[in-house]
């Protein structure tokens, strides 16, 4: 398609000569005195402000000459005046001009022709200038639009910036509220979990009570039974009952220990104790059964390790007993040693290595990891052959970890195993006098009789405990709850009260608090025969199936002087009674003769 022209598009609308007219108007303004005639390309005749009349033949001749000449062509108008014609391609057309002076001729190159030519050019330029002005105006408009668009762009961007900000704020707000919501939910869940954990812990305590109470009866009575005259067969059965009950009790204790450890409830004590004594004690436990088996049991402690150290002697003993017990179980000949070696000193603590070596069956390498897991032994047949629950090592592992060490084993099948752990020990300060030692001092005294008030609600336990106490050479009076015990104290004197903690009506804690109140009140004290004559507070030993540390603490807080767990072990009862009984029995004071 050819490039479009303005004329091709708008020729229908516009007079084609309009532009030539415009040009004539401009020329008239420049040369007001001249007469002008313009002949267009189509032959149209256009007059200026002063018309110029020419005879047709003259005009046609002039137009023709002007078209073929580059410059002005002279001629004569009807009025006799000189006229000049010139062709201009820009118009396009032939312009015929007559000035006032009739006679003058315009030779080519004269100042006059130049002047006229310049005037014509000027007129043309003025017309072109219109276009340029329009062009400029269009450019200005477009620039304005661009400026507007630019402004709008900036405005838009600012608006969007604000929008984005709002959205971000909104988002942040949502996020915050979401977080708050979730935090609240988590808190609630956490509280629920804590509650569940507490319930579990309570359940554990109750279970411990519920399990120990019947165990108490079984162990106690089978012990008593074995002391009655029995046939060989009966004695054998009784021993089996006693052994099974003892192993069940130890299983229960293990499970409770593990449960406590897993609940994070097990805390180690930090008290001074004699390390050599603990180790010797364990060794003494095993020496006789070892000798019976033909196994040599020895123990050795490095002399650089201090005698008295800080820690939980009971738990350490538990670990050593467990490891030694295992060694005993799996060793048929050779020897078992417990050794405590000095490793190094670090930060004021003596890092010591405890090992229990045996010359037993050993553990296959691929089972080493498994033996530390709960309820697992080296293989299924072990359980059948050697018994045990598989809980012992799992507990030892945890206890050693609590002590800051790591339980490991080196073992070779057929040659034996060495279980060892390295823990830091701190020397006990000299001024702390061990409770244990204190107790030990008392052990030397002999039981010399006295009156004991047993406060216990359970009839079976009443009987068992009464028998055990009587065997120790003491007189027993039984009260079945706290209130009744107060009644007994009102009318009788006792050297010691064995007070069960859990009882109906008035429990052991409350009864103990009452007794202490009465002791503190001189007036009230006179009403109680059993209290008024005493120079020291009445000895009260708590008796409970709850074996937890906090139970013991609660007993002391209520005002008790001693603590004994059920089931009652004869030896322990003997020990505590011996220790707690006053030097001078109430029997002696009452009846000095």
């Amino acid at each position, binding site marked *: 398609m050819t490039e*479009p022209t303005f004329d091709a598009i*708008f020729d229908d*609308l516009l007079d084609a000569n309009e532009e030539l007219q415009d040009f004539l108007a401009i020329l008239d303004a420049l040369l007001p005195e001249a007469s002008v005639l313009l002949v267009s390309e189509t032959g149209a005749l256009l007059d200026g402000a002063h018309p110029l009349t020419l005879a047709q033949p003259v005009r046609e001749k002039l137009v023709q000459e002007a078209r073929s000449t580059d410059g002005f062509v002279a001629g004569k108008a009807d009025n006799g005046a000189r006229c000049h014609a010139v062709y201009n391609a820009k118009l396009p057309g032939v312009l015929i001009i007559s000035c006032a002076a009739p006679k003058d001729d315009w030779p080519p190159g004269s100042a006059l022709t130049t002047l006229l030519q310049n005037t014509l050019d000027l007129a043309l330029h003025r017309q072109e200038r219109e276009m340029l*002005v329009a062009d400029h105006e269009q450019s200005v408009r477009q620039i304005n639009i661009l400026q507007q668009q630019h402004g709008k762009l900036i405005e838009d961007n600012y608006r*969007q910036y604000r929008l984005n900000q709002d959205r971000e704020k909104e988002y942040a707000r949502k996020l915050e509220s979401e977080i708050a919501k979730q935090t609240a939910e988590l808190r609630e869940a956490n509280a629920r979990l804590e509650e569940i954990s507490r319930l579990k812990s309570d359940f554990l305590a109750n279970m411990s009570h519920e399990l120990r109470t019947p165990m108490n009866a079984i162990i106690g009575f089978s012990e008593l039974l074995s002391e009655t005259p029995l046939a060989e067969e009966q004695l054998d059965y009784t021993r089996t009952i006693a052994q099974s009950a003892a192993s069940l009790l130890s299983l229960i204790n293990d499970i409770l220990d593990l449960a406590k450890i897993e609940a994070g409830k097990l805390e180690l004590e930090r008290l001074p104790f004699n390390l050599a004594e603990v180790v010797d004690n364990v060794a003494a436990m095993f020496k006789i059964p070892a000798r019976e088996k033909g196994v040599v049991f020895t123990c050795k402690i490095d002399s650089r390790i201090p005698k008295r150290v800080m820690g939980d002697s009971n738990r350490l003993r538990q670990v050593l007993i467990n490891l030694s017990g295992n060694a005993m179980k799996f060793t048929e000949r050779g020897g078992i040693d417990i050794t405590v070696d000095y490793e190094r000193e670090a930060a004021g603590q003596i890092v010591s290595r405890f090992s229990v070596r045996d010359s037993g069956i050993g553990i296959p390498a691929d089972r080493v990891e498994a033996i530390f897991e709960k309820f697992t032994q080296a293989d299924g047949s072990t359980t059948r052959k050697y018994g045990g629950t598989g809980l012992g090592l799992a507990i030892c592992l945890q206890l050693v970890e609590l002590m800051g060490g790591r339980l490991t084993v080196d073992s070779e099948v057929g040659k034996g195993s060495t279980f060892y752990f390295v823990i830091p020990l701190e020397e006990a300060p000299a001024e702390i006098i061990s409770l244990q030692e204190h107790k030990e001092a008392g052990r030397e005294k002999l039981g010399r009789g006295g009156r004991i008030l047993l406060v216990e609600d359970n009839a079976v336990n009443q009987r068992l405990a009464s028998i055990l106490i009587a065997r120790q050479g003491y007189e027993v009076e039984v009260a079945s709850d706290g209130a009744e015990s107060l009644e007994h104290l009102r009318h009788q004197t006792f050297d010691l009260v064995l007070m069960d903690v859990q009882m109906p009506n008035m429990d052991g804690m409350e009864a103990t608090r009452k007794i202490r109140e009465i002791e503190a009140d001189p007036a009230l004290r006179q009403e109680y025969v059993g209290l008024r004559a005493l120079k020291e507070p009445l000895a009260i030993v708590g008796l409970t199936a709850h074996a937890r540390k906090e139970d013991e603490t609660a007993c002391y807080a209520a005002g008790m002087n001693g603590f004994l767990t059920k089931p009652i072990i004869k030896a322990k009862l003997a020990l505590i009674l011996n220790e707690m009984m006053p030097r001078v029995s109430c029997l002696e004071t009452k009846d000095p003769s």
Partner: protein
Amino acid sequence: MPSAKDILKKFTELKTLPHVAIKVTQLVNDDRSTMQDFEEIIKLDPVLVTRLLRLVNSPYFGLSQKVESISKAVVFAGMKQLRNLVAVEGLRGMFKGDDADFSAQKLWLHSATVAILSGMIAKRIFGKDGEDVFLAGIIHDIGLIVENQIVGEQLREACKAFREGKGILTECERNAIGTDHTEVGYLLTKAWGLPQEVLSSIKSHHLAKQVKDVSSTGSILQLAEFMAGKMQYWAIPGPTETLPPELTEHVKMKVADYKIIIRDLPGEMAKAKELYESDE
């Protein structure tokens, strides 16, 4: 005879309209929309992304740095440019097919010419933002495309009658089809949510009614339609409609301006071709 609505109903069943175009148009009209919203839509269409980047990096924008991210390009192009870009892209595919009586390709060329001329007149003579009139130019004859697809036979009849001088195109269409492309186009684009002035210009671009405002979108479209016809970029070959006297008067007043527009048109068209031309 079917009404414009009947035709349109069939059309929408036949062919779905460019979703992106509609979505972008809605965003342009929504004050709360952000450039991110545009970006989300544009980036789904790789062809659009290419075109947008080409547009922004063209000499027209004269940016000193090359724009390579969509988000920046969206900001520079501005919403309306973006809308037009998307509209051109979306509509181009509809203008396909060629035969003696009706050529969709020629119609596309016509629409593009009218759009460019409209934009030039709006900007250069009236100092107005040319984007809306450009869009009006691109879609003003969309009704013909719809008619071609649904009532092709009757449309060809109407074209023939028009070529033989039996009246203006819309009259011929109403005789043969029962409605005309201005009505169909108006109804179709109404659903796109375009500015009211664009819609009414689509409806009125063949109306020989009295012109009240020479600078309105409708007037500019009519002028551009006239000029494109004279340049033989016509929609349907046939006699050119005469301009209303108000517009003739306006051209006479602005001879120099229109001379410049006609002088500059080939350059503008080449530029547009570069920006909008398909890569196929």
